[in-house]
């Protein structure tokens, strides 16, 4: 025995609206990409013109073309440094994500643990990293590990606090339903609380991605390690000492590009994970 769905109810079923697309993107999608690009190019053009018209020496302010040329010429050195900064950033972000998630789950299991540990997480967060980086660099022999710890401290908190909030945000009726079916603690965690926390965790990850990069750069500045195996921050310091201002800008450009790339990657991960159900990843309707 079964009932049949009435016509007017079924009419509200999802209908794919086919939009006009150019090379896989809607006209609005293209505008979203092209407009900021246009503004950027205009600004760069104005910069180049201002530098040339006023004959500003390159040790004060190099023009974009010269920066670009330096970027290509010094690519070999810069690329090594970029790779090192990237390694530290991603290692710190991974550790922050894993530990943040694990600790949030622990907090969610016990109110007492949360009450006793959360204040220390806050202390870790509010202490300026520049202030404690020298200490960490003294205490930890391996500079790479020291840098990793600094970047981790900065990146860790958004993931922890967001995920903790998410784990405690499960719908009340759904919680009742899990109780009705006598779900175990583990089942509630895996099937209800973690999925609920997912968008919160990903939002935290998006913030932490940028912070991990900043943490790594700041720590490198403090450490000031020389030699071949040093990151982009050291290249900036070094270029500053030698008055190689175009090179300084080139390193700066690489840092910005890296930051943007990290943000885009995190946004993509978030979109892929949430596109079926979460408002934030839904296409706007109408």
């Amino acid at each position, binding site marked *: *025995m079964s009932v049949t*769905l009435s016509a007017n*109810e079924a009419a509200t*079923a999802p209908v794919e609206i086919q939009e006009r697309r150019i090379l896989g993107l809607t006209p609005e999608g293209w505008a979203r990409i092209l407009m900021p690009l246009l503004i950027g190019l205009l600004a760069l053009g104005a910069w180049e013109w201002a530098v040339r018209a006023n004959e500003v020496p390159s040790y004060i302010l190099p023009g974009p073309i010269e920066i670009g040329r330096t970027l290509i010429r010094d690519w070999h050195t810069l690329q090594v440094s970029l790779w090192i900064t990237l390694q530290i950033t991603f290692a710190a972000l991974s550790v922050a994500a894993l530990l943040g998630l694990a600790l949030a789950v622990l907090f969610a299991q016990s109110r007492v643990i949360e009450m006793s540990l959360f204040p220390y997480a806050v202390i870790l967060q509010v202490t300026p990293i520049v202030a404690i980086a020298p200490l960490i660099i003294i205490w930890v022999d391996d500079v790479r590990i020291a840098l990793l710890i600094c970047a981790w401290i900065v990146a860790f908190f958004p993931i922890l606090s967001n995920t903790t909030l998410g784990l405690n945000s499960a719908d009340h009726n*759904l919680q009742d*339903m899990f109780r009705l079916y*006598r779900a175990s603690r583990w089942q509630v965690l895996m099937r209800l609380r973690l999925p609920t926390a997912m968008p919160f965790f990903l939002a935290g990850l998006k913030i932490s991605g940028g912070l991990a990069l900043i943490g790594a750069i700041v720590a490198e500045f403090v450490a000031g390690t020389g030699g071949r195996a040093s990151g982009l921050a050291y290249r900036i310091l070094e270029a500053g000492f030698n008055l190689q201002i175009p090179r300084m800008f080139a390193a700066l450009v690489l840092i910005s590009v890296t930051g943007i790339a990290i943000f885009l990657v995190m946004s993509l991960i978030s979109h892929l994970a949430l596109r079926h*159900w979460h408002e934030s990843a839904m296409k706007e309707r109408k």
Partner: protein
Amino acid sequence: MDGSVMPAPVAVGQPVVTLSGVGKRYANGTLAVQGVELAIGQGDFVSLLGPSGCGKSTVLRMVAGLMAPTTGHIDMAAGGQTTGDIGFVFQEPTLMPWSNALKNVMLPLRLAGVNRGEAADRAADALASVGLAGFEKAYPRALSGGMKMRVSIARALVTRPRLLLMDEPFAALDEITRHRLNNDLLTLWQAERFTAIFVTHSVFESVYLSRRIVVMAARPGRVVEDIEVKAPYPRDEVFRTSADYAAHCREVSQALHNAMGE
């Protein structure tokens, strides 16, 4: 609706749930329910009808075991304590937005340890029984309010419970959808032979659906009247416009009016 359901008097069996002197006082001191005596027979369709604040939802939640009474006790017939013997439909569809319709309906079975394959088959059957065959892969967001409620009902029925508890399930739906779901609910009830307890504040809905209406009053929540609706099943749109229906509605309205006037 197919015509295979023959008009027949509803046979109400032994009580599946018995409430004796049940009362509930909340932690803040509010007395939500007092002295409820109620025996609900096997296979019955009972509505708890009353104004908001009369404790009808509280009674339902206590029967479900989501809340313990502060006085009195609730007895379940043998088997009533096992998982999946009670289905619950909330006022909102209460679906997991991250899972599609099929996975939502599979949940009670998966929680009970049924393997994935069998759970999927049974969930697909349950979805088909509420008219949602073909919507297994749809996420709640893509479904209308009525369809979400159908998924919720399928989930409550997937364990083949003996007792189905519903807390104003159709209150948020438009009238046309509500009438359709009322009809479909009755069809399912007659086919599956579960016992239904239906909380509502609508006189018309309670008369249309129930064999028995328990009218409750507020402050403190208590049972004031117990009315039997003698009209035979299956009931359909003809019943909705009959003089019999109108008379029952008048009687129940009067009872509700008395309950609120006290």
